[in-house]
């Protein structure tokens, strides 16, 4: 194969006037100018692709950052927090020797395009986040929202999503211990697929993502890199290939849970043998994100040789290799002495491992491809110093009208017959109906530690067979409440998850959230978002449980119509003795029923 020439740093310096498709890549003209200013020249094509993905809403949190700060500022004091927000997932201490990490994340849009693979890779992604922290993943949950139950497209999306969540999680050997299924026409073109994973680790095995130690090697573990999920940067393709080059640019990622299972086992063995000094999973924005974030976190430089990256398709261009979202990959930082052992261990599990670069002096990320330098940037400018927006927000104009029409004005059933028909209507509603046909597609027994699972209000997992220490988790959300009042609605979701954990006997200690909203460019949506965040942060303070991590998903809307604001809240509780758990059902004849609360 002859190597096509790439747009190099030298070339970029020499051709400042070249017109670049930054708008097609989703960058605003002031963002583009900012990039030129940072670099002191125009970006190379590869650099432009990297900035475009790293400065996207998805990676940079540019619209949500200013609001999310409240989670830190208002956080109640907790001496359990070993790792806070900022790393891949927060870590909380649960005993002298054990720590827990958990997080919830969305994979909404991909699940609409290809329900099975979208949902499957959503599970795969959150599991890698947990693995990255040094934890063994021990359970998953899924919080799902679809359009009307009787809409034909729901018949396409729902079975695929459920099969995908199950197909991936079951194959990894992760018990599914709970979740939600909600139907509402507002999710018709924007189903929500939020997956949660929880993992456990000895406190001395926590891993961080910083690339440190000049001379240490950067090792790529796992699957070969293909053209998965590079839809965003495909506009650059025409500049690289002539017309007969590869035409299709799939933005769909295909999951390989078997590869991920091997990745999990090999990484856990790497951690136990203390063979890595830093590690980061590859998710959105693939290698771009992993290299810039590890370098920025370590406040170091990095040198990467792209031609060493094992490719599924040899014709891939540098920007494609860097933007690829091929699944089941991790990036590890390894000392040169340990490299041999790392490669041998990976080989034992049948996992591909390749040294693709090294940690360097200074603060530049330099990437070459067949001897041509295609990237030379300060990594922090991509990872941490992206644009931050204070987007305008404004209370939606129709909110007062909505609020003027509360449930309390609806007619109440007055007779026995009316009551009966109301009850039957409720029982027949898809949102209240039995979910067995969904949850029985998920393995709830694997690992042999599932103490509570469907149909219980919260899932509970035993962590230690000797001490019977365990954790309970529940996720909840109510988009309709939030549409009426996002501040109170988010707090109600929080309170519900909190209660669901508490009724098992566990004590809530931490919160993770997944904030699903419409377009941040719509001031009404931005208002809903800011209110929901404020609601959760205030609730954290009142209830004394901090947010340890989460995820924001914007642009869940069709045309001008956004979904209901849907913050999903997951609460984690600690159970000192899982044999003392309280089940949901009646246990003995003659027991009294007592109603607590208002």
């Amino acid at each position: 194969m002859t190597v096509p020439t790439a747009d190099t740093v030298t070339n970029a310096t020499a051709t400042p006037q070249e017109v670049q498709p930054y708008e097609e890549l989703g960058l605003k003209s002031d963002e583009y100018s900012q990039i030129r200013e940072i670099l002191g020249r125009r970006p190379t094509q590869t650099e432009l692709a990297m900035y475009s993905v790293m400065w996207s809403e998805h990676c940079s949190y540019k619209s949500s950052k200013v609001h999310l700060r409240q989670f830190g500022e208002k956080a109640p004091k907790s001496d359990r927090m070993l790792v806070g927000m900022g790393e891949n997932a927060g870590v909380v201490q649960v005993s002298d020797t054990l720590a827990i990490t958990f997080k919830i994340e969305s994979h909404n849009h991909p699940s609409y395009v290809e329900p099975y693979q979208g949902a499957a890779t959503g599970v795969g992604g959150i599991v890698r986040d947990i693995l990255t922290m040094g934890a063994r993943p021990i359970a998953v949950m899924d919080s799902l929202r679809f359009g009307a139950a009787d809409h034909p497209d729901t018949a396409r999306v729902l079975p695929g999503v459920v099969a995908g969540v199950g197909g991936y999680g079951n194959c990894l050997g992760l018990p599914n211990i709970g979740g939600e299924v909600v139907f509402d026409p507002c999710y018709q073109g924007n189903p929500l697929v939020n997956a949660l994973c929880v993992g456990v680790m000895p406190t001395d095995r926590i891993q961080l993502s910083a690339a440190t130690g000049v001379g240490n090697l950067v090792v790529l573990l796992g699957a070969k890199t293909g053209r998965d999920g590079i839809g965003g940067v495909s506009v650059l393709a025409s500049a690289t290939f002539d017309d007969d080059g590869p035409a299709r640019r799939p933005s769909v990622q295909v999951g390989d849970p078997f590869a991920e299972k091997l990745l999990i086992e090999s990484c856990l063995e790497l951690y136990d043998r203390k063979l890595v000094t830093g590690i980061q999973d590859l998710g959105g924005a693939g290698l771009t994100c992993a290299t810039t974030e590890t370098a920025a976190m370590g406040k170091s430089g990095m040198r990467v040789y792209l031609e060493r990256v094992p490719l599924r398709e040899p014709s891939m261009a540098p920007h494609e290799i860097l933007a690829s979202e091929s699944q089941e990959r991790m990036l590890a930082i390894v000392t040169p002495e340990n490299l041999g052992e790392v490669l041998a261990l990976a080989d034992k599990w049948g996992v591909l491992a390749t040294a693709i670069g090294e940690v360097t002096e200074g603060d530049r990320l330099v990437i070459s491809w067949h001897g041509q330098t295609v990237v030379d940037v300060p990594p922090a400018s991509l990872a941490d110093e992206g644009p931050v927006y204070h987007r305008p927000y404004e209370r939606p104009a129709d909110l007062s009208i909505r609020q003027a029409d509360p449930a309390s004005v609806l007619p109440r059933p007055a007779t026995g017959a009316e009551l009966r028909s109301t009850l039957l209507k409720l029982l027949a509603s898809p949102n209240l109906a039995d979910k067995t046909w969904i949850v029985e597609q998920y393995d709830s027994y694997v690992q042999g530690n599932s103490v509570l699972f469907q149909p219980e209000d919260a899932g509970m997992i035993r962590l230690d067979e000797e001490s019977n220490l365990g954790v309970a988790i529940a996720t909840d959300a109510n988009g309709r409440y939030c549409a009426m009042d996002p501040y109170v609605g988010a707090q109600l979701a929080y309170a519900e998850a909190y209660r669901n954990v508490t009724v098992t006997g566990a004590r809530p200690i931490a919160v993770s959230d997944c904030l699903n909203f419409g377009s941040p460019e719509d001031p009404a949506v931005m208002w809903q978002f800011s209110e929901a965040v404020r609601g959760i942060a205030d609730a954290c303070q009142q209830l004394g449980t901090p947010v340890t991590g989460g995820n924001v998903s914007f642009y869940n809307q069709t045309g001008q119509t956004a979904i209901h604001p849907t913050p999903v809240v997951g609460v984690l509780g600690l159970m000192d003795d899982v044999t003392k758990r309280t089940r949901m059902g009646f246990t003995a004849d003659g027991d009294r029923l007592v109603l607590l609360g208002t």
Partner: protein
Amino acid sequence: MARVVVDVMLKPEILDPQGQAVVAALARLGFDSITAVRQGKRFEVEVDGELTDARLDEVRQAAGTLLANPVIEDFDVRVESAV
């Protein structure tokens, strides 16, 4: 009655974990002249009555709507002939 075959294969650039697992197993078993395997689906479709152009078209449409997901798969429709 006629028999039409629809072959559905993952697009070449889409990851095919099954094919990869198969080729690795074949190598372990010593079948080493086999260098690559891709796994897809084969549907044998029976069509009522004579195989008119319209009916064949219907099969093609069925393939594009249900048998294959064009986002990740290519398909090929052909009238079965003795091999």
